[in-house]
């Protein structure tokens, strides 16, 4: 089937989309946006987190056809030109990135948190990131990054 979806503000079209494939697959394999990562394909790790109509979701659990006509924002759509979003910059500055596989999903989840709660408590940060797994950092630097981003915004 043909899929029409707005991604990062641009209207995109994908052809020959299999009806059972995920939005994550469409983004990575059909639209050339490999920022969102595929680490589990079962909603457990959050590395595929994107905004779907402004709501953060696991793109591996959205059927491609469910995104028809909707707006998707991926990690690639957060920066303004060459200027990183404050959340992205804070991940760099806090040393919150090791292998980087979890980073895109965490950045989107943290971005959403700070949009809703500009000055989150540590509990609120932990709760908001509970759906994102990181196998490298031990999370402390990630929490630092979110605190830093909250201060920077």
């Amino acid at each position: 089937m043909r899929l029409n979806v707005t991604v990062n503000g641009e209207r995109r079209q994908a052809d020959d989309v299999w009806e059972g494939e995920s939005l994550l697959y469409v983004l990575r394999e059909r639209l050339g946006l490999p920022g969102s990562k595929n680490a589990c394909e079962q909603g457990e790790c959050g590395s595929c987190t994107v905004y779907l109509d402004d709501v953060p979701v696991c793109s591996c659990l959205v059927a491609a056809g469910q995104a028809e006509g909707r707006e998707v924002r991926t990690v690639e759509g957060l920066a303004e030109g060459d200027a990183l979003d404050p959340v992205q910059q804070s991940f760099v500055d806090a040393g919150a990135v090791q292998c980087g596989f979890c980073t895109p999903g965490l950045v989107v989840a943290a971005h959403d948190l700070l949009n809703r709660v500009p000055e989150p408590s540590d509990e609120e940060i932990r709760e908001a990131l509970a759906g994102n797994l990181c196998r490298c950092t031990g999370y402390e630097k990630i929490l630092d990054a979110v605190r830093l981003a909250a201060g920077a915004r």
Partner: protein
Amino acid sequence: MDFLRPTSLDEALAIKAQRPDAVPIAGGTDVMVELNFDHRRPEALLDLTRIGELAEWSTLDGTVTLGAGVPYARVIDELGDALPGLAMAARTVGSPQIRNRGTVGGNLGAASPAGDTHPVLLATGARVEVASVRGRRFIAAEDFYTGVKRNALEPDELITAVRLPAATGGEQFAKIGTRNAMVIAVCSFAIVLREGHVGAAIGSAAPTPRRVGEAERFLLDELPWDAPAPLADSLKRRFGDLVASAATPIDDVRGSAAYRTHALSVLARRTLTWAWDGYRGSVLQCA
């Protein structure tokens, strides 16, 4: 595979009548896992996310009608006061991303013995509203779960809503797991106390979620309804034992049957204390 995208309930029911093999997909948090891992290859997917009627809730005469497609995040944000027990269960589901997509309708469709909303629906005395081109009917929650991952839905039917009374007393839900997020319940328990009604139900401790009738009757008889004072430990213990004795759990990777049985008696005691406090608070407010 066909991808069917009705924009109204009538259209969806007409499709389901013609294509009973079409698998409904709401939040997709169960369905997509099955597709991604090739556990299921349906002939067609029936997307329910464009049907406005399923994404609404309303209250009439103290009864909340909650559309099957309202995601957990909205149950938590919008219905915490009217449906505190359901909102508590919703808060424990998966992660923020899962709660942004997953729905009560999907929980019912999947009918997992571990589904978190089931004990609450049973304890509140909820009715599941289902529809087909043949008409609409209501199924009491306790008649809805017919086996492990089986429910009372006919092939041409869709779940349209659940109807449950807005809380007037105390409601509690509790679940055992290894962390505060992203856990399938090792076991779970819900209790609802209001004047003349005791509802209590267990999850993940039998082939289906189920009410614990003997324990409910015990409380109905023994609770000091007229002079709501704090409860005696002996009463709480007896209640916990009755709840535990209604369970028929299995050993599996998440926990042993013995652990589940014990944990249920503890959850029952604790949630009874909290729910009774809630009930007493509501009585004092009225007085």
